């Protein structure tokens, strides 16, 4: 039987689809989104598609400038570093480290933060107030400082960096989830399903989460851009990725010694970080803009 729609049905898109349609209307946000997707693809496939091994150098090709420079070589598009490692390969591989790991950070802290946040939203009284105070204390310590301390406890290394940065961002998600859930709980539609006899968890899962997911997403992009910067900063300070991993911050710190003779080893990783953070922030801006449009409409 044909399932053509005969009636003019009112289609009611999910909040997520509403957000997407609002998002698509801003060209700058879409540009950011394409850049972001490009980085995601690069982060997944870079270990396969890198032209050279990012860790083993070619000692005959030391400190080669980028190919547009008169001394450059086309086969090394972005030049090489002091051990003859191809900069392009290192930067591509670094995408999966710096950018890719920031994803891991966001997912880990998002999941833990949302679970704790929604549980704590259901608590009341002294317990809630105590939790709030503790959260305030942690939130008032800057994330990077806290991450540095955690790395100091765990010892330097890329996995410890990811762990530290993830831990540091959990309170932000707890805070926003808690706030959002509490706000939603006061709304009428929750009351309606409560009258239907739904349990707290059922309300949380079926009614509230779909309605706060976009707020969480907007927070997630904020956290991700901060996570990229934090991972890179820790790498730059020598506390994150260790030799010879091509994490962007670590590449930059490594190039520092040759800043004046091979400036591209410092410019390029810096630009890569900037690019990734701007792309993430543009997506975040786009989401927030779309949210605002939806609220206003």
């Amino acid at each position: 039987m044909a399932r053509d729609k005969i009636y003019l049905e009112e289609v009611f898109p999910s909040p997520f689809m509403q957000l997407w349609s609002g998002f698509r209307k801003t060209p700058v946000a879409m540009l950011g989104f394409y850049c972001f997707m490009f980085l995601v693809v690069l982060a997944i496939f870079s270990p396969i598609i890198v032209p050279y091994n990012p860790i083993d150098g070619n000692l005959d090709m030391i400190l080669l400038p980028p190919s547009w420079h008169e001394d450059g070589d086309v086969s090394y598009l972005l030049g090489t570093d002091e051990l003859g490692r191809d900069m392009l390969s290192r930067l591509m591989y670094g995408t999966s480290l710096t950018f890719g790991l920031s994803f891991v950070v966001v997912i880990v802290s998002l999941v833990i933060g949302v679970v704790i946040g929604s549980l704590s939203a259901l608590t009341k009284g002294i317990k809630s107030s105590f939790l709030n105070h503790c959260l305030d204390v942690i939130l008032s310590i800057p994330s990077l400082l806290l991450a540095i301390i955690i790395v100091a406890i765990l010892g330097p290394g890329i996995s410890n960096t990811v762990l530290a940065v993830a831990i540091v961002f959990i309170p932000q998600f707890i805070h926003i989830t808690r706030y959002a859930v509490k706000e939603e709980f006061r709304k009428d539609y929750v009351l309606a399903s409560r009258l239907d006899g739904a349990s707290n968890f059922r309300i949380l899962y079926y009614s509230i989460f779909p309605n706060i997911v976009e707020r969480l997403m907007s927070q997630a992009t904020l956290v991700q851009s901060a996570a990229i910067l934090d991972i890179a900063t820790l790498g730059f300070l020598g506390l994150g990725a260790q030799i010879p991993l091509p994490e962007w911050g670590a590449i930059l710190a490594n190039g520092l010694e040759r800043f004046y003779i091979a400036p591209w080893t410092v410019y390029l990783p810096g630009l890569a970080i900037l690019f990734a953070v701007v792309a993430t922030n543009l997506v975040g801006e786009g989401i927030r803009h779309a949210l605002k449009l939806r609220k206003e409409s």
Partner: protein
Amino acid sequence: MLTFTLRRLSLFIFTLLVLTLLSFSLGFLFPGDTVINHSGQINTTAAELAHLNKVYHMDENIFSQYGAYLSHIFNGNFGQSMASQSPISHEIITLLPATIELSLVALLIAMSVGIPLGFIAAINHNKASDNVILSLAMLGYSIPVFWLGLLAILFFSIGLGWLPSAGQISLLFEIEFVTGIQFIDILLSDSPYKWQAFRDASTHIILPACVIAVAPATIFIRLSRTAMIEVLAASYIRAARAKGLSFSQIIFRHAIRNALIKIIRHVGLQFANLVTIAMVTEVIFSWPGIGRWLIESIYHRDYTAIQSGLLVLSCFIISMHLFIHFIYAALNPLARGNKYGS
């Protein structure tokens, strides 16, 4: 105001206690012997170690240990640095003022650049200048600070030769340590080169302070823009306009004042953010502050220094927070209400 003060103070003390608890537990979390992590004395004989164990109540229960640790902290005894074997309280007293100086100057720059730009953006809401300012803010917010610092040195110190690249003051000048805030010390000193030293110190602070200020300035742009847009939409502005006040009168007499109050509330949080940025910047500009010291302590695995450095730095941040809250409450009676602490 009294209840407000009491409320804030009790919260402040609670926060400090949580922080000391955190720093106390770090002594257990770090590798090595807890009592050595607390005291920092690495080359101890058996007798000295026994004495330390006694002083820190290590043979008693954990609460008594914490009590002993607290009493050490309150007596200003943070132990010794494992790396240099000098008292940490002394090192902190010499280094913290440099960080305070740098971050306050940076905060000043961030506010004096960010807030007016935000206002301009808000007044020209949805126009070209608004978009330009917002894009700049986005860019400034996204730049990794260590990279920006390096570019600034390359451009201003090496390329143009305008500003020095490292340190607080040229080492030729001998300024006696009084407060640790370089500018005050220079003014207090009786050096024959006082004014030259003052100028030299000013040129040294410009570059690092500006680099630190970039990211917070962009946040101030956003904050002040949002605040101004809200204020301009408020009914009292419409009323003022209806009264026939000119645009500049409305902006300067009413809007700015009310928008500023909204911004001040956020200064505390931004200051915390700024201090972290300052830590990294201190490393790049060889600024003799506590941030660089803390990061170097991590390189040295100097656990006593990390523990105390964290405590002091976060206490400083939280005290600033409190201070700014008081200013805010003094300016805005509405903020003294009960909603705090919940």
